[in-house]
């Protein structure tokens, strides 16, 4: 009895295997469609990551650039030395021989930067979307066209324009403050060194943030809210007006309508936008690199700009690889936390 069932099982297995091979044979034609893109992705996306993992454990430097995996003759002479976890330890304990490098400060700053930016983007974006969400959107085409600008204009150019505006003597911001002084007879300081001052404007717990943090925050809020407004406007227009009418009949105030109808109904559209926005802001290279250059004294450095400097200025490829892996792990944890929070709040609303 047991034997026969075993037999039938093996028969079934070989049958399944046959079927598998037959379906492979039948789908050979399909391979032709994936192969070109697949090969390149293996080479450009997958292989560099494996290579990076290996590099992170070596002391890869500028002299090792002559090392070529595809040419065995270079293996002996130029192969970097294995150093185990040393790179990771040096990255995390901040024992790199680089000016102003402090991993904990970098990470803290990056997180504070991300949270404060995304918060203002969402709040401002939704408020503006609500304010502009009239039944008949006057000049809707113009308004939509204008909101396209932050995506369309290269980040580099936007950043340069803002760096220019924060200039101490000739920048528009200090000069505008001067005009305000003139009009209202106030006495605001018009000689603010927006990007250079190392003096924190707010003491106490926020004293690790120099004035330039607030300057780039303003620039990046300006840059980031239209994305949230576009998403929120789309979501707002799909809310049926009957809901508000019913709420009005039930005597709900405007504030109650906002929190009981508007917010829950635009949430599904906003959550993915917030997640994308978080990743973008976390890795926002252009704004920091071109406005503050990480200064003063590296206090506005992000993980990404630091990674760039490790490669481009210090040329410590092994350390940079380890640093990148650490950044990747941080990003993964961030995404996981975000997913958890999203699921938790979803459950709360359901």
């Amino acid at each position, binding site marked *: 009895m047991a034997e026969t069932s075993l037999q039938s099982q093996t028969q079934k297995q070989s049958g399944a295997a046959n079927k598998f091979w037959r*379906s492979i044979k039948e*789908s050979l034609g*399909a391979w032709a*469609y*994936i192969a070109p*893109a*697949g090969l*390149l*992705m293996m080479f*450009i*996306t997958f292989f560099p990551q494996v*290579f*990076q993992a290996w*590099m992170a454990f070596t002391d890869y430097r500028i002299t090792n650039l002559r090392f070529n995996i*595809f040419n065995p003759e270079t293996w002996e002479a130029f192969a970097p030395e294995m150093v185990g976890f040393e790179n990771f330890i040096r990255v995390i304990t901040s024992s790199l021989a680089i000016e102003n490098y402090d991993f904990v400060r970098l990470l803290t700053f990056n997180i504070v930067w991300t949270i404060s930016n995304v918060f203002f983007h969402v709040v401002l974006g939704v408020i*503006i979307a609500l304010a502009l969400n*009239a039944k008949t959107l*006057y000049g809707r*085409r113009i*308004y939509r*066209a*204008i909101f*396209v*600008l932050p995506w*369309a*204009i*290269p*980040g*580099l*150019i936007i950043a340069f*324009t803002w760096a*220019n505006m924060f200039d101490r003597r*000739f920048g*528009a911001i200090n*000069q505008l403050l001067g*005009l305000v002084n003139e009009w209202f007879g106030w006495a605001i300081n018009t000689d603010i060194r927006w990007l250079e001052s190392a003096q924190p404007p707010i003491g106490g717990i926020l004293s690790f943030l120099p004035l330039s943090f607030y300057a780039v925050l303003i620039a990046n809020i300006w840059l980031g809210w239209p*994305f949230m407004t*576009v*998403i929120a406007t*789309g979501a707002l227009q799909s809310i049926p007006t009957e809901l508000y009418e019913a709420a009005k009949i039930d005597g709900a105030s405007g504030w109650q309508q906002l929190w009981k109808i508007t917010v829950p109904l635009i949430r599904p*559209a906003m959550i*993915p*936008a917030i*997640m994308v926005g978080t990743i973008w802001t976390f*890795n926002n*290279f*252009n704004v920091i690199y071109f406005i503050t250059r990480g200064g003063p004294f590296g206090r506005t450095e992000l993980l*990404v700009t630091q*990674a*760039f400097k490790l*490669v*481009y200025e210090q040329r410590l*490829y092994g350390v940079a*690889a380890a640093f*990148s*892996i650490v*950044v*990747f792990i941080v*990003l993964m944890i961030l*995404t996981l936390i975000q997913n958890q929070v999203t699921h938790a709040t979803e459950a709360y609303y359901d």
Partner: protein
Amino acid sequence: MKTDAQMDYQAEHNRMIRRARLKKISSAIFTLLGYAVIIIIFITPFLYVIGNSVRNSQQIWANAYPISWRSFIPYEGLTLENYSQSLGIGDVAKGMSFDISRNLGISLLSSVAVVCLSLIFNTSAAYFFGRLRFPGKNYILIFVVATMMIPQQVVLVPLYIVADQIGLINSFWAMVVPWYASPFIVFLLTQFMADLPLEFDEAAIIDGANLWQILWRVVIPNTIPGLITVSLMEFQFIWNEFYWPLIAISDSKLFPVQVAVASQFTESGPNWGIVFAAMALASAPVILLFLFLQRYFYESVAMSGIKG
């Protein structure tokens, strides 16, 4: 002959209509004011760039300090000289490093090349994932989606080394080859194709079409909006890309336009008029594309919500 009550009623009615109309007008004014404020705050920095790109350096300095509406809106002595110098037309520009016409050409060529190659390779890969039957296909798709999550900046070091070893560094192809097959674009196109009913394919098979014919006659004609959307995203990505060419290209003759503009900020102080003109030129193509293809652009914004 109306009674007093009727008269009262009529008056009350008129008053209500008037009040409603007033409310409507005031809310319209409020909305318009809101727009105006937002547009002014939003567009001023761009006006500054455009306004200064049609003035000579002397005029820029004269108007920039002290600040007034004149700093933003040019009103006299307009000149297109900055643009012609920027594009290398005329004698003055010769021999100076202001000429970005070559860089514009390189940016345009590399963006168009990536878009075309991507249309061929990513479309066929998406066709594989979205329409064809293959055992274990979903596992491969999960792998593709996983690679999509890794931020570009994090893999630049090994990408540089790999590109160096196959001889791409400091060549035009460094800006094309790494980007033509993008997991993100494959994923988006797969979504677009999955929306198409499978019955279309079955009907084509009954009519005796092979896979290639189905792709060309059935799938592609029905996913044209999706293809335009991803092409737009890809063009913008390559055109505005700064980080990778900065690392990969060191020969100034091969700089794409973004890197060329950045390199005009020299130690000795940039020639502002020309820099502003170069900035306007470097932004113009994508802005124009976006304005003409706005509908697809908004689709791409909605789509980018999937990435994350």
